[in-house]
């Protein structure tokens, strides 16, 4: 690609366009149709993962009004997300396992997934909390992306990852030129520099080690500080637990889905009053197990993409890398 100009002005005719820009707090976030001059391409990652574009925190599933059911209309326009990081795009594959594969086919998720085009911007400056490379990803991983882009000194190197990505690139072909060998080399160097900075985490054999370490005293020690605040799950790009509530007033009922979190004390509370995960130890252990053992056993996939948000934002500064490095060691 010859220019850093992101063709979002053209894309806006096709649908919603989101690109990185600074919000009022000064943080870089996926913003709707930012003016070109406010685009930011130098950022680590967004505070919130883009999973809300596919699995919103609050989503009306159904409405009953005057005795008749009304389904919310599916999105008619496409959505283009530019600047998603490789880890967050990879996380979509985990969400696909839950919402699309097997017996479940979640139409609400599916509709958004079909209509959203993901353009990933590779990372050149990882954070000390990043560990994508240890969990099957990497700073230029294209999994989950429709288009993979790498920022160079003066240009943007792009490559289609899916047929939809190809379609997108051909629709803006007038902005593109074939990549020169120098450009490809520059991209590879930048990526390699990024890879070198990512500290490894021991995820080898995680399923087996977690199976063996189920009763380890490590869990009690490490989970004592957990406040059950929900920050980790809500910011995590692969966490997908939800609650469904029927809200009624008069002859109107709204069935709404909202995010839930396994770290909440009430998450597994039975109507009888019994709680199989009564203390932070059981809940925190479950959280690690779900991502690094049960997901592997069920889907042959880790449900962690190493984005580090849980580590950076935990108010008790908990770090699940400690558990991964130490359990069954």
């Amino acid at each position, binding site marked *: 690609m010859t220019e850093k100009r992101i063709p979002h002005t053209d894309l806006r005719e096709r649908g919603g366009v989101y690109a990185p820009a600074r919000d009022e*707090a000064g943080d870089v976030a996926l913003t709707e149709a930012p003016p070109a001059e406010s685009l930011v391409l130098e950022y680590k990652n967004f505070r919130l993962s883009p999973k809300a574009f596919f699995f919103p925190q609050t989503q009306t599933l159904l409405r009953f009004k005057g005795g008749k059911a009304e389904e919310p209309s599916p999105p008619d326009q496409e959505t283009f997300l530019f600047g998603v990081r490789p880890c967050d795009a990879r996380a979509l594959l985990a969400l696909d396992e839950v919402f699309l594969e097997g017996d479940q086919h979640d139409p609400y998720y599916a509709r958004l997934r079909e209509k959203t085009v993901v353009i990933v911007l590779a990372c050149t400056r990882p954070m000390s909390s990043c560990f994508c490379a240890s969990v099957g990803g990497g700073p230029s991983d294209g999994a989950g992306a429709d288009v993979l882009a790498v920022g160079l000194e003066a240009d943007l190197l792009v490559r289609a990852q899916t047929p939809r990505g190809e379609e997108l690139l051909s629709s803006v072909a007038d902005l593109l030129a074939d990549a020169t060998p120098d450009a490809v080399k520059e991209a590879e160097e930048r990526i390699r520099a990024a890879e070198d900075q990512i500290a490894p985490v021991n995820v080898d054999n995680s399923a087996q080690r977690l199976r063996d370490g189920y009763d380890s005293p490590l869990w009690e020690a490490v989970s004592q500080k957990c*406040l059950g605040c929900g*920050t980790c799950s809500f910011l995590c790009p692969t966490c997908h637990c939800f609650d469904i509530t029927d809200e009624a007033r008069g002859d109107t009922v709204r069935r709404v889905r909202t*995010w*839930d979190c396994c770290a909440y004390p009430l998450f597994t509370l039975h109507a009888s009053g019994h709680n199989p995960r009564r203390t932070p130890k059981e809940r925190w252990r479950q959280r690690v197990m779900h991502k690094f053992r049960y997901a592997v056993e069920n889907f042959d996939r880790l449900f962690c993409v190493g984005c580090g948000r849980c580590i950076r934002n935990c*108010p008790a500064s*908990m770090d699940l890398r400690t558990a991964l490095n130490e359990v069954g060691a």
Partner: protein
Amino acid sequence: MTPSHEIEARLREAAEELLRDKKVDLFLGYEKASLPFRTSPAFLTMPEEARRLAWNPFCTANLAVYLPRLFKAPADAREAKAASPPPAVGVVLKGCDIRSAVALIQERQVPREKLVIVGVACPGMADRRKAEKALGEREALGAGEDAEGNVRAVVEDGTEVILLREEIVAGACLECRSPTPSIHDVLIGTPVEARDPGAARRQTDEFESKTLGARWAHLQETLSKCIRCNACRQACPMCYCKECLLDQTLPRWVGTSTDISDVTIYHLVRAFHTAGRCTECGACARACPMGIDTRLLVRKVSQEVEDLYGYRPGEAIDAKPPLSAFAMDDSQDFLTEP
């Protein structure tokens, strides 16, 4: 201001002694976290673990939040039989934290006789987010404190950046009126005076000088970022109810959605339920992943409690919580007279 390394040394001594002499079964303090600009709560049970304790400008957590769960009454007779006796707990508490602990004692959630309160006179803690913002897109790979209490961060390219303490002090600390613990078993650090006792009132006065509509608009805008994660509530030492009203489903008082109506009611109820109990420690704002200043509403409620009922939580262990008490001459200016 007592240098941090001195406070750290005294904390380690105190913890080691208390654990060695078996005066406490558990000692709660702060230790270094895996990332800079943070500490993590440390739960120590052996005297040799005392050397894990740290004291630096990021000892921000209110450790009183962990106390109720340590003294939870058994749920039923069977649990009561199997339960071990409540532990003796040593805990490091700053001025604001101690007032939370006192409020918990008043509400019978924590027995005073089981606590060894190690109070630390606090000069004001640093706000991680302010520090990160000052670095821009650079990331701190390490951080230390200099003799003046400033934070020295080492960023990716190896350069050192000085973050002046005064510029990264947390919002809650800027408004703090009780930096020196009033109630304690051990006091570490020379007593510190409140830097600006009128700061909180100026905030509420300024907000109240806006029109009604402007206040509502500001509130809605502030709360629009809320993702209903409940971190503010979970981090608050005063929110220990087994089942929070806001989680109740029969009946459902407020939905779990991010509809601004649900979000606003969540925050209004939390502000109200911490009336006369909130000690302005800022744990809620610190925990919020979206960076919302959740102290906006409760700051006003705390002031009203002080103005109307002359009460400030956490100052006297035997004081009666204001909303469990009444006086025949309580103000009723707010009533409607037809």
